[in-house]
């Protein structure tokens, strides 16, 4: 009866204890080295609470580790990784099962169970080899730009492949000996081992020779596994420990909610000017990074040739931690500063906080948290460019970045033939938070007027805050001016608390995000926050908003980052477009993968600088590739501003017409 022999052919008997011993030792070395490396996170970094809701965290971790949902969102690399990871994991389980068979439930692996066990193991070898083949092809032939093409990754791939190959080779040699000594019939249950056995048999090797090979394979296998254990903490395989940990500790709050500035016990602000002022989780991010480059691939700043590369950002911090961590623990300040050294100020200001990197990262690295932390330090030091300084000063004094008097905020409303209710004076159903750009930008007020007219014609009971509205502070927070953000929240909260309303509707997705995710609960009181596209969608569904015309246009739609990726509003604007009779043709990068216009995260307040191509131009060029599409529909005031500029600078004004969603609705009325 077939069964699993323990230490077949390994003599003398003490040898097996030696192997157990040395493997245990290697495992210990691995754990100690890993701990030594990992201790930098909490020894260097600042405390941060990441242990809440453990079950939710475990669920997320299991999903990403075993189902590998994020990884699989990219087909080639995803399948490649999953094939290797799943098979390796099962093969790895083979050893503990063997130990259980030897010492816990002696001999349970026998007969049919043993054969099925072996079949699964051998199939896993094949699966792994397919994955490894794909990996080798990708690394040698495809060579994607986003990938780190360094030897240490090749080393890991070769090491793993050899470990996997020596396993069935041992089996093959044993089967060959058994076949010579006795007739066995179950060879085909172990297809890989059996195939190797046939090689020995066909070569006419003697039992002694095959035994010798068996011994070589055996010790090679053990040696390779020891190598894996010993090198794991400093090699690329560390990710099997750090990445699941990072997923476990990843942010549970909404993506659009940044954490406040931490204070030390003496109430001094902890600002990320140096490594030790990052949190332990921010430091862990670097060690969890697998260098897959998916963040780099989707980053709008990187795409247009700017210095910012989210992957490099995270890795530079990691390398600095490895280089200087021990020094910092001793209390020595490293010679290379974090801001202005490890990470340049250009890199920090180039980020649009579009969130594509975060959404893409299979290791759940939070690049934007690093960037905003370091921006807060720069702002605190007054290291802001002239334009940003003017914008912030204006926001502080007048509550808008335009430097206009607050009394002018509702200036656009004077052109209406009806008066909009003042929500601080009479109750309204919907409080319309208009936002800076829609209120003050001369190019946008026409659209704002149309919005008012559409709401009126749908019979919506709405009002505005007039001069008590301030910039909501979303971009102020993301640019790193936390104190000003708090002031704006206080001012708006006061106005909102004075008003009587059932829901808030916003024009600007950035406003939407911060009201929805960052404003105090006592102000919002659980009342719904809607983007105007959502309100329009509801009005159409309920029949309150009816169209007389069908627009018969072929249009494409640009997802605003803070509406779509941040808050998951993908379908409402699309349904509105359909309702106006337009045919929607999607751009290649759509929905979660939408490409940022370049204005977010406070970039609109900054001197744009020079770049080979603006993100908005890149996006417009994507739009014009669509056949027969004449209209580029947006649902964010900053998008109109950015893209109307971009069609001019790319001389594509004739090909593409940039329109706000509300304009379609207005035309179809």
């Amino acid at each position: 009866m077939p069964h699993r022999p323990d230490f077949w052919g390994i003599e003398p008997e003490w040898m097996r204890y030696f192997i157990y011993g040395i493997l245990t030792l290697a495992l210990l070395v691995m754990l100690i080295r890993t701990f030594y490396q990992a201790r930098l996170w909490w020894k260097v970094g600042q405390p941060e609470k990441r242990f809440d809701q453990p079950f939710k965290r475990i669920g997320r971790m299991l999903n990403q580790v075993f189902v590998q949902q994020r990884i699989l969102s990219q087909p080639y690399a995803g399948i490649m990784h999953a094939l290797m990871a799943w098979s390796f994991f099962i093969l790895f389980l083979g050893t503990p099962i063997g130990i259980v068979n030897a010492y816990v439930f002696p001999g349970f692996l026998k007969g049919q169970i043993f054969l099925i066990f072996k079949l699964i193991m051998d199939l896993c070898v094949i699966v792994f080899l397919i994955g490894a083949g794909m990996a080798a092809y990708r690394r040698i032939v495809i060579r994607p730009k986003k990938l780190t093409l360094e030897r240490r990754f090749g080393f890991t791939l070769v090491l793993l492949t050899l470990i996997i190959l020596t396993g069935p080779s041992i089996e093959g040699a044993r089967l060959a000996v058994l076949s010579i000594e006795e007739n066995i019939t179950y060879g085909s249950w172990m297809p890989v081992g059996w195939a190797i056995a046939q090689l020995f048999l066909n070569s006419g090797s003697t039992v002694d020779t095959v035994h010798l090979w068996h011994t070589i394979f055996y010790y090679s296998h053990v040696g390779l596994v020891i190598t894996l254990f010993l090198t794991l903490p400093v090699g690329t395989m560390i990710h099997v420990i750090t990445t699941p940990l990072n997923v476990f500790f990843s942010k549970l709050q909404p993506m659009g909610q940044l954490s406040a500035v931490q204070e030390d016990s003496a109430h001094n602000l902890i600002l990320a000017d140096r490594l030790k002022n990052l949190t332990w989780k921010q430091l862990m991010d670097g060690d969890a990074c697998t260098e897959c480059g998916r963040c780099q691939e989707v980053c709008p700043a990187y795409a247009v040739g700017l210095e910012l590369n989210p992957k490099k950002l995270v890795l530079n911090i990691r390398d600095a931690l490895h280089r200087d961590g021990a020094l910092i623990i001793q209390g020595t300040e490293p010679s290379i500063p974090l801001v202005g050294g490890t990470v340049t100020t250009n890199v920090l200001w180039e980020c649009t906080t579009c969130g594509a990197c975060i959404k893409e990262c299979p290791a759940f690295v939070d690049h934007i948290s690093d960037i905003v932390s370091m921006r807060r330090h720069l702002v605190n030091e007054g290291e802001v460019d002239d334009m940003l300084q003017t914008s912030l000063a204006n926001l502080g004094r007048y509550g808008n970045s335009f430097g206009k008097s607050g009394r002018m905020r509702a200036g656009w409303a004077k052109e209406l033939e009806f008066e909009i209710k003042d929500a601080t004076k009479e109750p309204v159903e919907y409080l319309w938070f208009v936002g800076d750009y829609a209120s003050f930008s001369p190019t946008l007020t026409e659209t704002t007027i149309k919005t008012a007219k559409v709401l009126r014609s749908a019979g919506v009971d709405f009002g505005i805050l007039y001069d008590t509205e301030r910039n909501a502070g979303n971009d102020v927070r993301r640019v790193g001016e936390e104190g000003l953000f708090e002031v704006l929240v206080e001012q708006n909260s006061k106005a909102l608390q004075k008003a009587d309303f059932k829901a808030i509707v916003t024009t600007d997705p950035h406003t939407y995000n911060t009201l929805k995710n960052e404003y105090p609960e006592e102000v919002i009181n659980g009342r719904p926050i809607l983007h105007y596209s959502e309100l329009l969608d509801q009005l159409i569904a309920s029949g309150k908003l009816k169209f007389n015309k069908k627009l018969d246009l072929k249009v494409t739609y640009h997802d605003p980052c803070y509406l779509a990726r941040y808050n998951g509003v993908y379908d409402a604007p699309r349904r509105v477009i359909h309702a106006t009779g337009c045919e929607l043709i999607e751009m290649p990068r759509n929905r979660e993968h939408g490409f940022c216009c370049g204005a977010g995260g406070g970039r609109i307040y900054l001197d744009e600088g020079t770049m080979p191509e603006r993100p908005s131009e890149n996006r417009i060029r994507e739009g014009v590739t669509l056949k027969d599409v004449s209209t580029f529909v947006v649902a964010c005031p900053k998008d109109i501003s950015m893209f109307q500029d971009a069609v001019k600078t790319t001389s594509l004004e004739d090909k593409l017409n940039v329109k706000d969603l509300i304009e379609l609705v207005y035309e179809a009325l």
Partner: protein
Amino acid sequence: MKIVIPIQLVPDRVEEIVINKEKDGFDLEEIAWILNEFDDHAVEQGIILKEKTGVEVVVVAAGGEKSDEALFTAAAKGADRLIRVNVDFSTEKVNNHALAKIFQTIIMEEKPDLILTGVSNHNGFDGAIGALLAEYLGMPYIGYISGVDIEGMSALVLKDYPGGIKAKMEVALPAVLGISSSEKPPRYVPISKVRQAMKTGSVQEKDGDIDLAGGLIIDRMYEPEVSGRAEILSGSLKDIADRIAEIVKSQGLI
């Protein structure tokens, strides 16, 4: 070494400038007040000098608590001490002559080596504070300064002339300098630092008197009429060109 920087608030031109019922002055209650832009530069220049040489920087304002925000902002930038002279501007029409006398008293107490102040204030119709103050104190004055360095007991300054011309001058201290722009533009102070300064800092309060003897009195104040659209010049090409040249010249630009 010690620097005193007298500052004042001026009407914010972004907001409506409201004229009083009597039509002979500002409506002090309705106007939004903001730190005089040039005083902001003077404060910045003072802080730059502090960073270079470690001088003590004292910022002085006159009037009510309205100026506290500007004072604490200066403290957040690095000013060492803040002084507010409590005088009631609402009863008297204060002009720069009177303000200069208020500052004179404080400066005589403080005995600084250098006084920096804004070269002018847009609502000041009776001369620059700095020039008046210098004479009241018997000190030398240079206005339109865009850079200051201290060397021993004198200051090396850059004085601006029209057309981008600058003169480098040396002035013996103590002296008064009218700053038109600091070496570097005034820095941004994050709100958190201003709030911190308000929490931990303090303003030294002093009494002062308003002496209006020196200045002139405004008896009528009004907004000029604005023409809505450009005057379209007519005539031959040459006529138009000549007219434009004449307009440019009348502005004192060529």
